[in-house]
């Protein structure tokens, strides 16, 4: 029997104005991070609906990270402040339901922080990998 090597699947929602550009900068500087990280571009971190996060977990993602502009630097002035409240509440709820808290994260990464982006992704991927597969939120019918 062949044992399939476990590779975590990570969905990263990145704000178009900062972290998405930060990810581009990481690319420009050839700073590597695991290919398990897949980025979805959103206009602002406040566009991220909890539904998207749960959907990702449902479909088998092992970790979800939301990256936005640093508080105070939102392109839309206040979007990331709403993100901060919504995600604080949501993550606390997931924790309350017994979901490993390490699987969810919010990071503020500016367009200039390519190195921080890569480092964050490396560190997050490692954390998620050490937790193993997401079993508590996945939808069995959606499993590969």
């Amino acid at each position: 029997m062949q044992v399939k090597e476990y590779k975590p699947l990570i969905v990263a929602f990145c704000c178009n104005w900062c972290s998405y550009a930060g990810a581009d900068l990481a690319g420009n500087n050839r700073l590597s991070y695991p290919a398990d990280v897949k980025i979805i571009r959103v206009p602002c971190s406040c566009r991220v609906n909890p539904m998207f996060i749960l959907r990702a977990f449902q479909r088998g993602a092992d970790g979800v990270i939301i990256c936005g502009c640093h508080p105070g630097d939102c392109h839309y002035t206040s979007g990331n402040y709403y993100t901060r409240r919504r995600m604080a509440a949501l993550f606390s709820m997931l924790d309350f339901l017994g979901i490993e808290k390490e699987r969810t994260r919010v990071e503020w990464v500016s367009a200039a922080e390519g190195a921080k982006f890569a480092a964050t992704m490396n560190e997050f991927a490692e954390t998620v990998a050490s937790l193993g597969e997401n079993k508590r939120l996945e939808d069995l019918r959606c499993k590969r």
Partner: protein
Amino acid sequence: MQRVGVFVCWCGSNIAGTVDVAAVAEALKNEPGVVFSTDYQYMCSQAGQDIIKNAIAEHNLTGIVVCSCSPRMHEATFRKTAAAAGLNPYMVEIANIREQCSWVHKDMLTGTEKAIILGKAAVAKVNLNTPLTPGESPVTKRALVIGGGIAGIQTALDIADAGFPVDIVEKQPTIGGKMAQLDKTFPTLDCAACILTPKMVDVAQNEKIRIFSYSEVEEVGGFVGNFDVKIKKKARFVKEDICTGCGACVEKCPMKKNPNEFNLGMDNRPAIYIPFAQAVPKVATIDPNACNMLKNGKCGLCARICAAGAIDYTQKDEIIEEKYGAIVVATGFNPISMEKFDEFAYNQSKDVITSLEFERLTNAAGPSAGKLIRPSDGKHPHTIVFVQCVGSRCDACAEKGKEYCSKICCMYTAKHAMLTRDKYPDTEVYVFYIDVRTPGKNFDEFYRRAVEEFGVKYIKGMVGKVTPEGDKLKVQASDLLSNKQLHIDADLVVLAAAIEPDKSARPLATMLTASMDTNDFFTEAHPKLRPVESPTAGVFLSGACQGPKDIPETVSQAGAAASKVIGLLAKDKLTGNPCIASSNELMCNGCSSCERVCPYGAITYVDKEFRMPDRTTKIRRVASVNPAVCQGCGACTVACPSGAMDLKGFANSQIIAEVDAICK
């Protein structure tokens, strides 16, 4: 079903070095909707773009996915390509397989695998794309400047200079603002009036500029390019167009004892008055609370004396409605009230004054004709104590002072101290400071001159209390550097009061849906990169309404705001970003959640009639997004519980499709 074309770019070896581009093109062929898939060395080159154009025509494509570099790089390029081929530019999606794939991953297998997944996500998204058209709105080529101080004056002049009509609304009877009250200006010591009044005259004479003095903004509707503004012109009981400003009425008015606001109440003015000699417009105004004719119907002297027949006791407030393309806020500042600072005895002694009062006392047109005297007895003061940071940098006493540094006090105090020593070398001048902050061209040099050349005694420490005793003011203070408590018998104490935004700013911000910070300063759209724009489109900020500023800074910000306004008014039409929010009225609850999170005030509510399944009709309140104001952040879409609010170009279904494609 869409007909999707996929174009995988090699980017030379930038992508092809770590991604098997042919395999990616091949793999994506099997995705739903994909009818054409190819790869090419440089998709952004002319030849590459031709491949895209030809494929669109040949395969009747309704959507395309370009697997290439970051959309931040070439999304605009490929949108133009699509448009050139007759495809809606918003039917283009980019899969970022360079910056976020080939450049960060080392081996071919990993790179190719990830590129395919990113491509699939883009295909899944484009399948749900809909053609979008940017909204267009006309621009009313007229600007409104609220506030007629130096900030408003400069902004108005610069806008008018570019050929656009400008209206200034000023609540006082004259423009000029705080600068008109000042004596000299730091660090060059030009007289304020000498540099300001010519500008005021320019404003009065400029054909493009209308001045609504003694007026206030009453109501603001509309949005960028199309503001509808109601301006209340308060009754001044003098016909503005007839009054010649001769001043005969002012001289003859019997009701002489009213505190003169322009001199901060240090002397009196009649009930009918012109604030100062160089006022613009130079027109008399009757104070209805002081005029005997208006109060009791007895007198009427000014009407009899006025040769031009300008007096009109029946004048009423007038509402003027006008359309504007842009609004500049220049509401300025005021010194905070000293009422609550008992320790400085401001209320107990006339000889404890604020710095602005000191300006009037030293101003040649002021209550003492420029002679520095003690307000209580008119005697020459020999010992003067200046106290800095009164009410500034105040953390503990929110009800008394302000947490921020008021920025201008260090410099004007140095100016006051220096000028006093210059004109009256017999005076002893103390300045009590916590820090002396002098960032600015020639600012520190100026302060050093006050100390070194003019012998002003700067003492690190604070004044603890001021006690009036006889005709002296006992000043008890600490000298931190020599670790002593000082007791000074002063003749005059001058308080460098903190400054705060004008009280009219808060209601104005509500009218404009412009955001403010907790101190009531207007917030800028970006603290570094968009400092003169408010987050609300079409609203610009000039001067101290945005934060404490000195004159040079105010003037440069005023010019910057003007150039932003000119850039806006120069356009015939505003094209918006089509990726904006829109509400599905059938599902909208009208709950206001979206409105509360919208940073731009783009959401309003309308009552709409709906046909119910049982053939009755029901009127419901539903959200409506103003496409000219919405910037497309999407905060509302998450606040909306029913999912009625969605973002075009980043719809819920599109993002979920991407998630699904990635997680499949």
